[in-house]
């Protein structure tokens, strides 16, 4: 499973890297054809779907890490914009917002898949009583 995921990651990284160097639409198309031929030659056509989804996600994030904000109640647009203005200079890109009433209150921020800042009430209660 992890070998499969690693392979897909490398394909996505390679394709995004080569598409970034394409100056025209024609060049980009040629790069894509080369990519399909490469994948077919290596016998990895079964990964093609996952690779294209990966490329889509990379472009959404535009090479930057995604921030996920989870709150107990819906966040206002002002709060979201303020968060983005703080995080953007630090290299973080798009913000996704989620509501989870189980958090009871407060907000938790996932910075990519690497850091978590948990200021929710649920986490505070957990720390108090564990």
């Amino acid at each position, binding site marked *: *499973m*992890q070998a499969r*995921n*690693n392979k897909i*990651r490398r394909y996505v990284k390679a394709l995004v890297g080569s598409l970034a160097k394409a100056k025209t639409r024609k060049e980009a198309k040629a790069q894509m054809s080369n990519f399909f031929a490469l994948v077919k030659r290596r016998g990895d056509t079964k990964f093609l779907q996952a690779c294209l989804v990966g490329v889509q996600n990379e472009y959404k994030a535009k090479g930057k890490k995604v921030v996920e904000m989870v709150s107990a109640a819906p966040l206002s647009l002002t709060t979201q914009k303020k968060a983005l203005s703080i995080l953007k200079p630090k290299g973080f890109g798009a913000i996704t917002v989620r509501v*989870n009433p*189980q*958090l009871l209150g*407060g907000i*938790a921020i*996932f*910075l*990519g*898949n*690497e*850091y*978590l*800042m*948990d*200021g*929710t009430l*649920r*986490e*505070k*209660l*957990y*720390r*108090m*009583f*564990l």
Partner: protein
Amino acid sequence: MEKDFIIELLQKQIQGANLKPKAEEIGRIVSVGDGIVSIEGLANAMFSEMVLISSWPASLNQPPVAALVLNLQEYLVEAVVLGDDVKVREGDVVKRTGQVLSVPVGEALLGRVINPLGKELDEKGKLSKEGLSSSPLERNAPSVMAREPVNTSLATGIKVIDATCPIGRGQRELIIGDRQIGKTALAQDVILNQLNSPAKTRPICIYVAIGQKASKVAKLIRDLESRGAMEYTVVVAATAADSAALWYLAPFAGCTIGEYFRDKGKDALVIYDDLSKHAWAWRQIALLLKRPPGREAYPGDIFYLHSRLLERAAKLSKEQGGGSLTALPIVETQLGDVSAYIPTNVISITDGQIYLEPELFFKGQRPAMNIGLSVSRVGSSAQTKAMKKVASQLKLELAQYQELAAFAQFSQDLDEATRKRIDRGARLTELLKQDQYAVMPMEEQVCSLFAGVAGFLDEIPVHKVLAFEQKLLELLRNLHPDILEDIRKTQDFSEDTQKKLQLIIEQVRKEFI
């Protein structure tokens, strides 16, 4: 009133807690199975670091599950779960602790039964934090200059071992043999015999059960408790029902607990029962981590697994406190094959081995120790002067007897000298038999073996030798304790004491001829 009380309680709880939001480095589980989790993220995770897995948001009903990081790859970190992996799900959050795996150590562990993570398994309540500190499971062995040669005896209470294959404090002596041959019984008797040592110099005993049946461990604990040996013993149990991760960690936990006492200048004894199962556990984990298998599917570092464990058993120099950690690893062979992979590995690491043979066992020679194949590389440096005086003669007699043993069936056709040698050897062999739990202090062993090597048993029928020994020791304990006291205090066997003992032996011998 009640409301106010509850509010007051909560306020106290809140005041003490640090509730500021903190940024924690996390990862996410991408796959879980067979006790191994693959984690995405945790870019700064260290090898052997403890991480905590929990669902997010966390639930008080589901405390975090600990895992040990063992593989650091390009995009993934792989860890072995130290608890129940059934509760771990894909997408769960993994948090770093920044610490390597540790176990509680201290005097408060004496008399307790714990698992390799330090969790209590007996029903004697939570471990008191006051008498405990924390120590990492993996530690460096003492350096060359921090050690000194082994020079003090570790009395096992078993005649055949103390006389022919003596163990010293700080030595590693392997106990090797087939299944159901008496390996654990031997180890248990060594623990029991420490009751005969004065409390000041008594070594702390740590018994590590790796993959053993829970019923067997329970019986051992009961036996130790009923004889008062649990007071100075710690049991670390990773039974057959536990995961391979706990089997893998158990010996390291036991060693760390023993090192605490060693570093305090005390003596400790750790028994690993058994390292064959420890090797199986590491093989299982390594295969699941997709490490390349070598001979018999063991990973390439299987030797290092045991060498780094056993090197931590040492006799420290006086500058380092003078403490010692003695190791008695046990290895199970299949059909007596000591040339198999794991047995040869451990034999080359240890300072000698006690080889238990099935043939001797079924002939009734118990402990079934093959004196020819057993060795202690420390040798007589670990023996008292008293024991040296009787043991050297004993080994010579037994060696000669073993050479001539094949002729025993033709004893009527042999010359007088050969026949006498065979008769003497048969009686000495009979004298070396010893029941389980019937451990003998050094002074009694010296008296008993003296009777044998000095030829006082030559006219006693072989089947009456043990009865003679019993009678002799009863007489010494009840009517002549001064002889035993003298040997115990001086650790020597003077001419005067020998003469006194000879008279008593003559007196008892008459009843058995």
